[in-house]
Structures are given as structure tokens and as C-alpha cells.
């Protein structure tokens, strides 16, 4: 068992020491993802599917940083991304500000909110369950404020983005590479943090917070940093996605839309692994499309997947495949501790 929550990776693993080996997986993954649209002939349908895949993967990287690295159960991915998106759209629509100003403003707001949640959790010493409930309540407050504050947010119908129509942002192919760039950026940040002194602190505090504090880790600062960076990641994707779609609505960022999916993606791919979010997003997106005819039953499939993962297959796919690889030849299955 590793980490106080028992959900961390099997043994806290430090990232590779050499820069090449540390970043190679990101290079490989981005090359593969960059080639996908070419091999699929650039159809609009597949490109928009690809954009959704990249968006959910990016969200999952952020969740990985907050939950995987510092054990903070944020059940408000959608709300943080949505706060940035709505902020950016409203600033643009009301004051005619350009995207290069409104998106950073949205990201700043998300970072502030995420950091604030982390800070509150740390200073009130919230146990995981209480932080989970607070962030879930925060999500629902956010959604309901969107619904209630009709003049500002357009209520249930949402807002149409005034600017940006007809630009390259709305073209599926360009957007695909834009979101790929965002995802790669997130992965690089994630890995860079992992390799820094901060990352060492993350590994220490995930194992045992008290021991980490004794070893000189500033636990509060580490957690708040994770909250700020994670929320900024969520915000950047959320705000950019709004600009691309040309439209925001409460459902785009609802708990049931975003958080549920992110949880499944990260659990499937593997909490605390670099490429877990990407692998999980690919699997979930493909399976989601295949299961589309099932309608409501898709939710059942997700639920069962979550249960199975948390019951026995807790390391996720990336780590399981890796350990299978290492034991190739022997018939040993993945470790299910």
C-alpha cells in the first residue's frame, strides 16, 4: 500500500533522471496524436472527436496533479474549467476584449479559485471526504449560479461567443493541433514538476504528510501550488474550448459531464502516471463512441468500470501494461494490491 489513501501508485516512483528519458514518452505520444488526423483523412467527425479526446485528457492531467500527486480530492474540474470559460466569454462579449486578454483572465480566475479551495482545505485541515464534499458543493453552486444569473450567464441556454466566428480557431483541424499543443504543454509541466524539488515534496507528502513535514517539505505550500497549477490547466482548456466551440452552457461544464468522465479516464489510465490521462482518454473516447447506441446504459458501463478498477485493478492501464511488459514471458498477471 502506498500513500495514506492507498490509491497511489504501487511504490512511489521517481521520474527518470535523464532529461531524454523523462520527456521521451511525451514526444512519442504527441507525434502519435499528431499523426492521427492524417491517418483518418481529416474528417470533421473524427476531428471533433479528437478535440474532445484532447480536452478530457488535459483535464485529467490537471486532476492527476491535484489528486494523484497531492491527494486532494477535487470534485470540481468542470466548475473550474467553466469558471474560466464563462469569465473569458463574458469579458469578450461585454467589453469587446480580445481572446489573448480574456483567456488569461479566465485562467487567472480558475487558478485563484483552485488555489483558494486548496488553501481553505489546508488551513482547515480538511480530511479527504470533507474536501470532496466541499468541492462537489462548489460545483453545484457554480452550476446553479449559472442557471440563476440569467442576465450575466444566459441561464440554461448559455452564451454565444460574439468574436472569433470564421477564424482558424473554429476550424476543426487547427483546433485539434491547438488542443494537442495545450495537452503537450500540460504534460511537460506535469513532468517538470515531478522532476523538481516540488515533485520530491509531492512524493513525500503522498506517502506520509507528517513525515514529509518533518523532512522539511512545506506541505501547505506544495498542496496550494498543486491546486493553483491544476486549476490553471483546467481553466486554460475550458476557456480555449469555449472560444473554439463559440458557445458555452452549464451542461458543458456540469459535474456529470466533466468530473465523472475525468475520474473514469484517470482511474482507467492510472493515477500518478505521466501518460495515464492520455491512454485513459483514448480508451474512454473510443469506448464511448462504440457504446453510443446503448444510450443511458453507457453510464452503467462507466460505473462498472470504476468499481472494477477500484476493487482490483487499482494501478490503471499504464502501470499494469508496464509491469506486464517487464514480466513478459512469465504468465504473472498485473499486481492487484
Amino acid at each position, binding site marked *: 500500500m502506498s500513500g495514506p489513501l492507498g*490509491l497511489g501508485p504501487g511504490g512511489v516512483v521517481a521520474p527518470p533522471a535523464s532529461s531524454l528519458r523523462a520527456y521521451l514518452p511525451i514526444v512519442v505520444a504527441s507525434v502519435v496524436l499528431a499523426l492521427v488526423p492524417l491517418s483518418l483523412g481529416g474528417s470533421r467527425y473524427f476531428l471533433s472527436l479528437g478535440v474532445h479526446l484532447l480536452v478530457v485528457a488535459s483535464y485529467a492531467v490537471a486532476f492527476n496533479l491535484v489528486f494523484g500527486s497531492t491527494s486532494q480530492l477535487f470534485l470540481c474540474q468542470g466548475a473550474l474549467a467553466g469558471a474560466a470559460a464563462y469569465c473569458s466569454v463574458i469579458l469578450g462579449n461585454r467589453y469587446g476584449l480580445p481572446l489573448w486578454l480574456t483567456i488569461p483572465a479566465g485562467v487567472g480566475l480558475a487558478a485563484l479559485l483552485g488555489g483558494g479551495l486548496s488553501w*481553505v482545505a489546508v488551513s482547515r485541515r480538511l480530511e479527504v471526504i470533507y474536501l470532496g464534499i*466541499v468541492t462537489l458543493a462548489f460545483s453545484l453552486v457554480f452550476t446553479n449560479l449559472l442557471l440563476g444569473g440569467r442576465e450575466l450567464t444566459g441561464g440554461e441556454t448559455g452564451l454565444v461567443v460574439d468574436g472569433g466566428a470564421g477564424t482558424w480557431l473554429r476550424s476543426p483541424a487547427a483546433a485539434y493541433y491547438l488542443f494537442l499543443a495545450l495537452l503537450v504543454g500540460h504534460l511537460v509541466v506535469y513532468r517538470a514538476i515531478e522532476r523538481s524539488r516540488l515533485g520530491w515534496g509531492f512524493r513525500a507528502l503522498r506517502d506520509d504528510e507528517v513525515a514529509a513535514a518533518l523532512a522539511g517539505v512545506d506541505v501547505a505550500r506544495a498542496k496550494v501550488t498543486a491546486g493553483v497549477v491544476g486549476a490553471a490547466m483546467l481553466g486554460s482548456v475550458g476557456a480555449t474550448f469555449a472560444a473554439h466551440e463559440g458557445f458555452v452552457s452549464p451542461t458543458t461544464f456540469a459535474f456529470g459531464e466533466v468530473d465523472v468522465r475525468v475520474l473514469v479516464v484517470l482511474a482507467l489510465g492510472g493515477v500518478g502516471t505521466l501518460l495515464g490521462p492520455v491512454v485513459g482518454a483514448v480508451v474512454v473516447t473510443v469506448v464511448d463512441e462504440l457504446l453510443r447506441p446503448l444510450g443511458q446504459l453507457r*453510464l*452503467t458501463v462507466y460505473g462498472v468500470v470504476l468499481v472494477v478498477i477500484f476493487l482490483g485493478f487499482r494501478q490503471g492501464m499504464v502501470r499494469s501494461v508496464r509491469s506486464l511488459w517487464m514480466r513478459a514471458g512469465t504468465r504473472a498477471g498485473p499486481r492487484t494490491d
Partner: protein
Amino acid sequence: MALVLDGVAFGLQLALLATGLTLIYGLAGVLNLAHGQLVVAAAMVGAVALGAGAPVLLALGLAVVTAGAAAVLLDVTLLRPVYRLRGQARVLLSLLLTLGVAFAADGLLVHSFPFTRLNLSVATPSVELLGVTVRSASVVASLVAIVALGGLVVLLRTTRVGRAIRSLTQDEEGAQLCGVDPGRTRRLVFVLGGSMAGLVAVTQGLVSSVGATSGLDLTIFALIVTVVGGLGRVSGAVVAGVLLGVVHAVAAFHIGTVLTFVILLVAAIVVILVRPSGILGGAGS
């Protein structure tokens, strides 16, 4: 006055909903995020049984039994590995597992019963109470809730089983050393908590109706009340339920349901931050 009475009636439903959740959390360390789905499952069974021509009492009995049985099934199957963990690890794993169960159950219920609703508004003449006219259905629902809540409190306070439940809630190992069987007592508490959820289906069916999609909302309401009352505190859940019920009724009348919901959520957040052991307070959490 009418608003307050409405609020108390609604609050009793909330209390009934939350005591099941808080009882299970207090004893087993499992915050069951599929609690709302237990209510829905009970409602669907009741509705189907009624539709098939079963007598009302039999149908409602079936509904309650369904929820109790589903809860204990969860305890003895999926949650088994959870009990090998202690403290935070147990809480987190059970949270994630029951979230998965909630999705699975939600999908299944909405898929299987898209148009079914449990609706017991048979004939509801109005009655005079404290100079206010109230629906008799609401009175009956409140009485059911009062009897169930009272019965639970009596069970916990005065019986040997109740004492065993309270001892386990306070100190699992100490209780074992006193000869209390934790597994058996836990199963009993899951049956009790699940049945309370089943009763909510009945009382909600009396005052309005329960459909397949209500699961998540019910769980959220239960969570809010449980948190405000203090996680694991049955008496806290009762008080918080009634209190929030009144707040809900009054606020909804004046500022609309959306903002009222926001108020309840903010109340839960504030309680967690300033008084994590709940409104009744006291040391420890």
C-alpha cells in the same frame, strides 16, 4: 405559518433520507454515494408492483425491503475489501466505489424505467392543522417519518443492539473486545439505513412522486443534511433535516428554488469549514 408547516413536513423527509446515510457512515466509515439510487430502486419496485395490481401495502413493503436488501448486498459484496482498510483510506475507497455504483445504478434505472414514477397521491383531502389547511398526504408522510425516526432513536438508545451499534461507531476495536460482532452489526445497519431510504420512496410518493432520474438529487440532499448535522450523527441529521426543510420552504417561496439550493449548498460548505462536527457541535468529528 403554512410555509413553516410545509417546511417541517419536507424537513422530516430530509431527515429520513439523511439518517440512513449518516448511520451507515458512522458505523462503517462508508459514505454511500449511491444512497439516492436506493430510494429510486425502491420507488421503481413499488411502482411496478402497484402497476401489476399488488395491494398498496404489499407494494410499499416490497419497496422498503428492496432498498434494505440492496444496501446489505452492497455491504457483503463490493464493500468487503473496503473493510480491510482503516480511516481515510477506507473512506476514500468507499466513496469512489459507491460513486461507481451510483453511476451504474443510475444508468440501469433510467434505462429500464424511463417513464415509471411512484405516485401515491390517491385521494388527498385537506385537513385543518394549527389553523392552516394542509394536505392529508403530507400529514401521513410526516407521521411515517416521525414514527420511523422515533423508532430508530429508541432502538439506538435503549436496546442491546442499539448499544452495540453506538459502541462500534465510537471505537471499532473496543467494541470487538466487548464481544460485538462488527460484520453482523454492520449488515444490520445497512439493512436499517437502506430501509430508511426505502421509506423515503414511500413518503415522497405520497407527497409528490419519485422518478428514475431523481437519484443524484436525492444523494445530494442527503449529503447536505448529513454534513450540516455532522457526519455520523443520527440526532444531528434529524435536527438538520427539519431545520433545512424549513429554510428550504421559506427561501424557495421568496427567492426561488435555484437560489435556495445554492443556500443549502453554501450552508453545508460553511458547516464543514467552521464546525465540522455539525450544528449540534461537540468535540471530535
